């Protein structure tokens, strides 16, 4: 089973219909374990109980960038290999990514209020993530502005690849500028600086959120394929009208 075999939408539909219940169940179990572990994690000596926002905030923030990365790969698939499912993947991922980005911003601002004394600060990390959110919205607007999906796909692919420049800027913004946001403490050279009591629940939550994305993405791709079939049938029906 290679990527090319999946180019057949029907085969993709049958495979995902078998896969999705398992994925959804696994996501549910992992989320339960992750949430339980997060709730049981000790309070931080400085931040108290608010540190638990981290277990929601950090996976959302990771996913917000990861989804754009997935869309960039799909954009390459659209432009270079003309893979028939690539534009479906890109289109289905955009609203999910926008949700993750919004949740990262919202939980971050709720965390910022007790810790920094402000809901919002115009520092480099926050601003670059806000730009990411605006680009997600622009991309969704682009998808919705054009009727023909394959035409919209190529335009959206170019925009996605241009927007991918933002990803390293977000990742390294905390190193390049003096920001209120703390520097990386998990994915860094020299290993994580986070204590194991926090690290393990965080990694479980990150895995659970990634699986959540995979589940939602596959389901959204199925819906998009079915929606296109309905559209094609409707167009056919309309053309047969006297």
């Amino acid at each position, binding site marked *: 089973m290679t990527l090319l075999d999946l180019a057949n939408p029907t085969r993709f539909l049958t495979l995902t219909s078998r896969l999705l219940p398992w994925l959804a169940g696994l996501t549910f179990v992992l989320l339960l374990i992750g949430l339980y572990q997060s709730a049981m994690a000790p309070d931080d000596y400085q931040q108290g109980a608010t540190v638990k926002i981290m277990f929601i905030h950090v996976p959302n923030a990771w996913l917000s960038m990861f989804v754009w990365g997935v869309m960039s790969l799909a954009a390459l698939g659209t*432009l270079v290999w003309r893979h028939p499912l690539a534009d479906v993947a890109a289109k289905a991922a955009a609203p999910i990514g926008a949700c993750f980005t919004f949740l990262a911003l919202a939980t971050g601002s709720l965390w910022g209020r007790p810790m920094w004394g402000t809901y919002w600060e115009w520092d480099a990390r926050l601003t670059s993530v806000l*730009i990411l959110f605006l*680009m997600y919205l622009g991309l969704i607007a682009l998808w919705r502005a054009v009727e023909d999906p394959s*035409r919209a796909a*190529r335009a959206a692919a*170019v925009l996605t690849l241009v927007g991918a420049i933002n990803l390293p800027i977000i990742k390294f913004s905390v190193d390049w500028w003096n920001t209120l946001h703390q520097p990386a403490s998990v994915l860094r050279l020299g290993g994580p600086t986070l204590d194991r009591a926090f690290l393990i629940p965080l990694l479980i939550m990150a895995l659970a959120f990634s699986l959540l994305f995979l589940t939602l993405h596959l389901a959204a791709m199925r819906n998009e394929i079915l929606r296109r079939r309905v559209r094609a049938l409707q167009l056919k029906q309309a053309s047969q009208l006297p």
Partner: protein
Amino acid sequence: MTALAALVRRDVKIALRVGGGALIGVLFFLTVVVLMPFALGPDLALLTRLGPAILWLGALLASLLTLDRLFMADHEDGSLDLIVMGRVPLELACAAKALAHWLAAGLPLVIATPALGLLLNLDATSTSAIGLTLLVGTPALTFTGMIGAALAVTLHRGGLLLAVLVLPLSIPVLIFGVAASEAAIGGFSFGAPFTILCALSLISFVIGPFAAAASLRHGLD
């Protein structure tokens, strides 16, 4: 080379003649700057402090306003198809068109800046600093905006969609343009934000033509 030079000359000529509409951008820039004192109140000290931001915002909006014309007119009369099919690489042709657009619509904004600086009670050093940052920064606005213009022309949509697509990409230019101007006025280190602004322009020279050419090649039919 001569083909590209001819393309630049043609585009500048069309933009400057009747119906070209390049100078509308300057007029818009002037109007936006004149509107500001009415909104903020005629407090000269406040206008001096906000001057760089007002000028940069005006220039950004004015360059956004004229971006529609970059490919739209050529698409309507069919010459864009000739450019796409021509022997000159499309990336270079896009770069030439953007250069011509900047000469006709971006450079006048830079030239108008000293006069507008007077209205905002800016002294000579501040005005020249803002003028210099605009001179370096407006090409970046044109070359990143070109991506949006190319997408808009292939989708037969302009206006608001173009603004929504282009504005997030131009935020870094705005940030470092205003930061460099304010550093020069406040006497902080001007070099760091200014060199980053130059870097943004150089990056946009590379990415803009390639992305615009890709979207034209895949989008036109």
